[in-house]
């Protein structure tokens, strides 16, 4: 691992992060735009990129827009919208092959920048606002996506658990927004909120590939150049939550398998010095097939096919998920709570410690082999304001002992048990 290798600078109101490397056959570009998660803007922020992908000043029709991407040897273009801590992040991605593998007349990196810059800053406008038909169709698209969450029961149960647990915080909001807001959004109001979003968002632009910071800066100035905004950084507003009692929520739907989800609160976040201990805690609890949850819920009791845990260091929460027969609910909850107690009591073997360290080491080392993973790791540093390289994190994981994991376990408090169960049985 080289020290994450990114070279950092500023241009056109954005932070620019470039990693020159010949390891990949592609150029990977990511643009992150983050704003505080807020009920009044969450839906318009989510809808805007859907409209932006329909047409630009140069490629007004959607077929022209997509044909252009195909001409660039099927350049990958997409965006994701998600929550990180109490921020709503829109991530645009482009993935273009390095020209040296094909006979291309154009510089594919340059053309990709031209394309991305255009998508973001030169959308198709009619009478000073977005094209009405695009807004109408994409409003329906977002509505359908929100309605479709229930189709995937595992994901639905996971999101419902978070929503219940964080019902008094902005984090309850779905990153795609609220259905009830959609009807009120007009082409004019959306264009206004898009402009405000672009002016107010914290922007981080990443490039990984066979290029240089100088080349990237030139391309940025040429294709994103009109912005004069101040470069900003993320600010954490994390406040630890104390749980007074465990809340249980049951919901009935037409399902074959019950989905059992739990939410936990911890005071340890990504920027904390104890972050490595929390990672170890999650790994021993349920991050891997050697973990307590997999071994006890699945292998010993045959109660489930999946039983695992996750830790979100940006929000300071842990989650547990499993799919079980509905009549096994009490048994499964008991076994899972027992594993939480075991960790709190410090019942952690050297084998568990060493296996988990080896798995985390592998995960952190593998980051280097994927351009987008490298980008994502560095963005976590920007987001948390914590300047800690992968090697430093690795060293902290390696020096974590059972006592440290026990101490971390003490900060994880069970907050919510959510159970999605069948109807009428």
């Amino acid at each position, binding site marked *: 691992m080289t020290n994450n290798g990114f070279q950092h600078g500023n241009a056109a109101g954005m932070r620019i992060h470039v990693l020159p*490397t010949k390891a990949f056959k592609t150029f990977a570009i990511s643009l992150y735009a983050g704003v505080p998660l807020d009920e009044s803007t969450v839906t318009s922020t989510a809808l805007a990129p859907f409209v932006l992908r329909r047409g630009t000043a140069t490629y007004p029709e959607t077929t022209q827009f997509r044909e252009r991407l195909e001409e660039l040897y099927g350049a990958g273009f997409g965006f994701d919208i998600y929550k990180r801590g109490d921020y709503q992040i829109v991530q645009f991605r482009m993935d273009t092959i390095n020209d040296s593998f094909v006979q291309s007349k154009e510089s594919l990196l340059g053309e990709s920048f031209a394309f991305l810059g255009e998508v973001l800053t030169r959308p198709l406008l009619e009478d000073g606002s977005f094209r009405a038909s695009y807004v109408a169709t994409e409003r329906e698209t977002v509505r359908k996506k929100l*309605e479709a969450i229930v189709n995937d029961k595992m994901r639905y149960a996971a999101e419902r658990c978070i929503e219940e647990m964080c019902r008094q915080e902005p984090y309850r909001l779905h990153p795609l927004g609220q259905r009830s807001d959609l009807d009120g959004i007009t082409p004019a109001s959306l264009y206004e909120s898009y402009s405000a979003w672009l002016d107010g968002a914290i922007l981080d632009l990443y490039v990984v590939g066979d290029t240089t910071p100088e080349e990237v800066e030139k391309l940025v100035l040429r294709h994103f150049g009109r912005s004069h905004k101040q470069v900003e950084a993320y600010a954490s507003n994390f406040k630890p939550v104390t749980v007074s009692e465990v809340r249980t929520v049951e919901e009935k739907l037409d399902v074959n398998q019950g989905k059992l989800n739990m939410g936990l609160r911890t005071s340890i976040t990504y920027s904390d010095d104890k972050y490595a201990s929390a990672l170890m805690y999650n790994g021993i609890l349920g991050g891997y097939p*050697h973990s307590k949850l997999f071994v006890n819920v699945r292998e010993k009791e045959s109660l489930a096919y999946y039983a695992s845990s996750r830790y979100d260091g940006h929000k300071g929460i842990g989650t547990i998920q499993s799919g079980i027969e509905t009549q096994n609910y009490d048994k499964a909850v008991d076994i899972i709570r027992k594993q939480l107690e075991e960790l709190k009591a410090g019942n952690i073997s050297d084998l568990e410690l060493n296996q988990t360290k*080896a798995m985390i080491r592998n995960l952190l080392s593998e980051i280097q082999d994927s351009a987008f993973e490298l980008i994502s790791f560095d963005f976590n540093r920007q987001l948390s304001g914590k300047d800690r390289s992968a090697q430093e994190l690795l060293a902290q994981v390696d020096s974590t002992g059972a006592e440290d994991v026990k101490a971390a376990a003490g900060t994880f408090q069970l907050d919510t048990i959510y159970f999605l169960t069948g109807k009428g049985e």
Partner: protein
Amino acid sequence: MEQIHYDKLQETLYYEVMDNGLKVYVLPKPAFKKTYATFATKYGSVDNHFKVAGGDETTVPDGIAHFLEHKMFEEPEGDIFATFASNGASANAFTSFDQTVYLFSATENIETNLSTLVDFVQRPYFTDENVEKEKGIIGQEINMYADNPDWRVYFGLIEAMYSKHPVHIDIAGTIESIATITKETLYTCYNSFYHPSNMLLFVVGGVEPEKVFELVRSNQAAKSYDKQGEITRIFAEEPVQVSQKHKESRLAVSMPKCLFGFKEKQDGLSGAAAVRRDLTTKLMLDLLLGSSTALYQKLYDEELISDSFGHEFNSSPQYAFSAIGGDTKDPDLLLKRIKEEINAVLASGFAEKDFERARKKKIGGYLRMLNSPESIAHEFTRYQFRGGDLFEVLPVYESITLDEVNARLRAHVDWEQLSVSLVVSP
């Protein structure tokens, strides 16, 4: 140890066939930190009726290849995941229609992990007790898929098309079919399909090829295998026509899911001819239905399709079919409109400039795939088992002609061969 250079791709592949018939391939990626290895047997859910030369003809319960995959992870001393974890390797496995693949990914202890992979797959350990225990776990896996509308609509389509060929049987089987599995039936399948001559080891990443071959050579030399006769897979004759034109399942969904496709006549193609047919068909489907086509945009603007709309083509020497569709508020109207639009393209054929653009997109997608060790290993093995070469795909793409794609369109789109699968709310 032999090697092949692929100049255009800037890759070199090393390979060797072991004395017992095991094929080993190594693709060094010096810039990569991780190593990814797959150990695959040409044995999947469709291989439920077979005969090994010198043995009896055998029929086994549905879902047994997948059950066997689960059980391989258990060793007398415990779960093999623990051994991989101690050496920092992330291990997994999957079963498809025609292969079972065991794999790990690691950045350290590569030789130990490679030995663990080869050894655990070559050391079956089944007991009455551990077989019974697994039925509960796989039962929950089956229930999980039963709640998944995408899986249900996909399998519904295959069931609608095929009545005899076992491709229509769910890979995990059913709760009832796995109840009949015993350690004896597992050993029968293991001994028939896990002979080294039916298997392929692929290693990609920051490794030195000669070291890998040395390790595998001595590992295999220490194990004794009798020479195995040829495996004959027996398939009942599949009618040319689809089994059902229309099939519906009920599951709570926000909007109906509609998947349709064309069942092709059995053509027995394999090797380079099958690869060319597959690539041409996929290119054709993209030209017909891809997100940059006029057809796609019209249906999207009519709010009949969403971002979930997609297409794929699946084939083996005994079956070949397309699967097209996604979420729609009105399946009947969608099918009517699709038919009108496809018939218009059938009449006109594809345009040269669209064809060139689609070809570029495919080439770009192929090159981007080569960044991913996982994709390389999976795709390479899949191609090999069918007698093809993943690294010869670029010249095929470059030589496909517009006439060929137009001919493929007319051969594939036969409305008599259409099946439709729906998942709708109860």
